């Protein structure tokens, strides 16, 4: 079907505000009377708090309140697992943990107060390595683990065939001898041991990935005001207004309807703004002072106490038949969850676990995922959570197997890639997979097997690397409301705060397409918690969850208007039709346009709602990437010369926004691959500013050619598939494979630094 608006690059609804500086973010909300809030943080990775002396701070004229763990509700905080006090009570479990909160009249007074608060600690033994933490005898970081509760988010994304052992969290994790497990997830199909017994070759490799930060450029911030009647007014940089409201209501013991969260713009989240701990602490400060309090974290606080991506150790063992068929697959991943599970949503585990056997049709599979407590900063979700880690291992491993088997790396993948009728390695059902088409296309666009890029200088070695992946399409729940305004224009009310993906533009485009109007006749009215319920932005759910909800509202509006027109004309509903943004009477020339009806039915509400809620769909995005690199053999420096990327799509609502998601995801992946890492010494992050935590700049991005493969079906509105979390996960294995192709050096731990590669080259020469 031809679309009029869908598929066009209509400009973003918030464009003018964003290019003129008019767009408001949390820190822009100036309240002259708002106090500045801030935190005293632990310098120790694990210690008992022996005492806190705030007398000198409280003596300062500019200080309004100092609160500690003893002054706040006893409730523990957590998105999936409630295991974290908002302010440490008796024990601190990581460097940077909040120990006390201060409110002062200005930043200078705040800084001085923070420096004057004396906390006495008794150090405790700490553990940082997740594998050590598992061992008997390791310090137990949460002796009260059994008493913790799930935050009540039901476990999703598991089908009948997946074998969830026990729960993701809870008593099961406390089996004798098992230490410091936040969450364990075991999935699979077939008979693993039999599978290995039937295999001709067995390959086993292990890999590790580093801890990386979302590095959005807006550090988290919030403003909390409590009025005299106890109504709470919140502005915060967060992915879900309603989650914040629910969490504060529980924490403060007040009704949700007393709390209002405003829909300001969010300066990037990428999964890293799910948590709202600082909102709870700020609420406590505001209550203690009887004045609005505002917290704008320094970037250093973001880096030492954010929700970064879990570092991980990935182990894969694969049994392969003589002819190259993958026959048995045993994957284990150990995610370093840091000191608390509190910041990991849903299941305290990673959907990326489900990628631990790749997108291949292996019959016998077992996947195990441990998320482990250590005395490091708590980790959370970051674009394609858990998957960047697993796919780095899997796709490096597949290349290593291909080389050992003497097989072409692309051809071996083609032989094993999931096809229609297969289930995924996890046992999950799969519809309309296009892995074959995607692999064939990347071969075609990159000239795989033909021309290889030659080194441009003698001391450089050229190589080419491939990686392949599939990505689930996000789940969730949202509601929207659609109104016909007095002037006949449309107003769509949504509670989805655009984090940058262009959600509101997509909403506008979908409404316009279905209603047959031009987009500029539709105003997007973005609300906070006084809008219709929305579960929160995450996991590339936009076109699936939001798109379908918007679609329902628009279709319902058409039906409503047809009914009203039919009643007005006194004709049967069946004799009416919707055409060119108006109702037609099929039996005559009678027509009512939106403006006519707005006038005609002015006394009746022209409002419809749209709701959509779904779990993970059985459709997946399929993607492949090829990296052409040059490695300087004297220095180990990598230069990425060219990236080719292929993704399967159905309908693309807005090509420019769609492309922007791919480009952004791939360059975040490039950063993870080559430069990004929170460097942690004895549990302390030592690179605490963006001069030391480097992310890619415009000077670093290679040429990127994107090619889209058409697939038939998708779960989203107009059949669309998601795009927000693709790209990022397969950059690292592609570049690692390219480096190995160029030099023979196989790097198994991210990031791929020049120094590691040079050491690898020296080791090869030594042989």
């Amino acid at each position, binding site marked *: 079907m031809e679309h009029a608006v869908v598929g066009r690059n209509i400009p973003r609804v918030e464009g003018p505000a964003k290019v003129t500086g008019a767009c408001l973010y949390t820190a822009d909300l100036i309240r002259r009377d708002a106090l500045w809030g801030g935190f005293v943080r632990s310098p120790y990775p694990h210690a008992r708090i022996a005492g806190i002396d705030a007398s000198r701070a409280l003596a300062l004229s500019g200080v309004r309140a100092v609160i500690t763990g003893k002054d706040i509700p006893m409730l523990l905080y957590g998105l999936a697992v409630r295991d974290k006090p908002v302010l440490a009570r008796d024990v601190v479990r990581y460097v940077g943990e909040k120990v006390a909160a201060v409110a002062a009249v200005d930043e200078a007074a705040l800084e001085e107060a923070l420096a004057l608060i004396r906390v006495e600690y008794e150090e405790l033994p700490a553990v940082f390595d997740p594998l050590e933490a598992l061992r008997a005898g390791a310090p137990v970081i949460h002796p009260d683990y059994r008493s913790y509760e799930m935050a009540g988010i039901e476990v999703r994304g598991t089908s009948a065939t997946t074998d969830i052992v026990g729960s993701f969290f809870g008593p099961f994790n406390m089996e004798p001898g098992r230490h410091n497990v936040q969450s364990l997830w075991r999935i699979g199909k077939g008979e693993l041991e039999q599978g290995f017994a039937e295999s001709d070759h067995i390959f086993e490799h292990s890999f590790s990935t580093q801890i990386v930060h979302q590095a959005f450029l807006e550090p988290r911030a919030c403003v909390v005001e409590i009025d005299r009647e106890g109504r709470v007014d919140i502005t915060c940089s967060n992915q879900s207004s309603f989650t914040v409201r629910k969490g504060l209501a529980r924490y403060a013991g007040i009704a949700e309807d007393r709390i209002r969260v405003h829909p300001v713009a969010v300066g990037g989240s990428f999964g890293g703004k799910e948590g709202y701990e600082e909102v709870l602490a700020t609420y406590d400060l505001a209550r203690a002072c009887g004045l609005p309090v505002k917290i704008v974290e320094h970037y250093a606080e973001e880096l030492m106490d954010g929700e970064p991506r879990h570092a991980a150790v990935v182990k894969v063992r694969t049994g392969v038949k003589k002819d190259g068929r993958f026959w048995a697959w045993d994957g284990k991943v150990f995610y370093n969850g840091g000191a608390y599970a509190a910041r990991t949503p849903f299941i305290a585990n990673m959907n990326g676990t489900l990628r631990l056997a790749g997108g291949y049709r292996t019959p016998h599979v077992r996947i195990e995922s441990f998320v482990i407590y250590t005395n490091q900063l708590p980790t959370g979700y970051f674009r394609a959570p858990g998957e960047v880690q697993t796919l780095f291992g899997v796709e490096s491993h597949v290349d290593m197997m291909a080389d050992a088997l003497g097989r072409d790396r692309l051809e071996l993948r083609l032989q094993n890639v999931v096809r229609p009728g297969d289930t995924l390695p996890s046992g999950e059902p799969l519809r309309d997979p296009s892995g074959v088409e995607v692999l064939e296309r990347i071969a075609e666009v990159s000239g795989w097997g033909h021309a290889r890029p030659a080194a441009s200088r003698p001391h450089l070695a050229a190589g080419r690397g491939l990686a392949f992946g599939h990505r689930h399409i996000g789940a969730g729940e949202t509601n929207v409301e659609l109104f016909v305004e007095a002037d006949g224009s449309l107003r769509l009310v949504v509670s989805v705060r655009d984090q940058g993906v262009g959600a509101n533009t997509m909403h506008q485009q979908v409404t316009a397409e279905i209603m047959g109007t031009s987009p500029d006749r539709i105003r997007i009215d973005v609300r906070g918690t006084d809008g219709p319920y929305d579960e929160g932005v995450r996991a590339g759910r936009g076109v699936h969850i939001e798109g379908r909800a918007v679609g329902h509202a628009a279709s319902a509006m058409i039906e409503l208007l047809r009914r009203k027109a039919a009643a007005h004309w006194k004709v049967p509903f069946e004799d009416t039709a919707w055409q060119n943004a108006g109702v037609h009477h099929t039996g005559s020339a009678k027509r009512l346009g939106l403006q006519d009806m707005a006038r005609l039915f002015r006394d009746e509400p022209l409002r419809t709602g749209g709701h959509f809620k779904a779990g993970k769909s059985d459709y997946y995005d399929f993607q492949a990437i090829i990296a052409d690199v040059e490695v300087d053999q004297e220095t180990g*420096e990598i230069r990425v010369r060219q990236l080719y990327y292929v993704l399967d799509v159905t309908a693309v609502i807005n090509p420019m926004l769609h492309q922007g998601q791919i480009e952004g995801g791939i360059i975040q992946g490039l950063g993870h691959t080559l430069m990004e890492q929170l460097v942690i010494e004895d549990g302390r992050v030592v690179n605490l500013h963006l001069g030391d935590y480097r992310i890619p700049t415009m000077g670093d991005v290679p040429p990127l050619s994107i090619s889209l493969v058409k697939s038939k079906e998708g779960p989203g509105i107009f059949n669309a598939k998601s795009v927000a979390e693709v790209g990022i996960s397969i950059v690292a294995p592609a570049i690692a494979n390219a480096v190995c192709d160029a030099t023979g050096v196989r790097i198994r731990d991210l*990031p791929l630094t020049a120094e590691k590669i040079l050491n690898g080259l020296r080791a090869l020469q030594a042989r």
Partner: protein
Amino acid sequence: MRAFEYHAPASLDEAQELLARHGDEAKLLAGGTGLIILMKQLLVQPARLVSLRKVPALERIARVNGALHVGATATHRAVEMSPMVRELLPLLSEVYGHVATVRIREMATVGGGLAHADPTQDSPLAFLVLDASVRLSSSRGQRTIAVDGLFLDHYTTVLEPDEVLTEVLVPLPDPGTGTAFMKFQPHTVADYPTVSVAAGLSLDESGRCRKARLALGSVGSTPVRARTAEAMLTGNRLTPQLLGDAAQSVAQELDPISDLRGSADYKRKMAVVFTRRALEAAAARTGKAA
């Protein structure tokens, strides 16, 4: 940031007088890109700041006889873009053109950069290779010292608390001089270097190396002159073999410490590689030099 008194003297004398009066209590402020960060981090808490921005003529770049005089408050960007610098001292504009980002180069000043004495900086390397000296001025008088003698330790120079670095004096290189600058940033083009190298080679009529200068950054507590290598080159024909051997010799002269841009061992190895590359590039340019 802690509170402080702010002074913006309208003359150099006034600035020197303030420094003399307040000594260690006062800090000079030029571009501020180094000092303000330290102040925000509370690592430096001066009671007074003395800004040089209203001191006239301190940003001047001028040719005086056989030397180029670069005023202390000339910005990195001004030096980079100056046609005179491009023509007379291409190395200087090349090096300043590699510092940080355009925006920081618009703010940071020549004098501020040298006084900050951060061993990861690029500009000192150029001045070392060009045998530049700095003029230090105080109410007690003036002195001129070689840039070679300016740096003592991390962020530490020979400047007395009451002294102002007013200008850098750079003698114009003789004909037959070739220079080159190499900055190794393996992970992003906007990073601090793992190592950076500036080289200057001058040939005599017979084609022998009459003077060799080699300076390295990010590999010690101060910028480092590679004197052994310089000596090996001086008086000899610049064969590829000799350039390689000279480069090899810097490994022993350096004492880098491991940091986020590489281990001590890696920095030492890279210093050798980029010294060789810088020497080769400089040698190739000796012919072309005016």
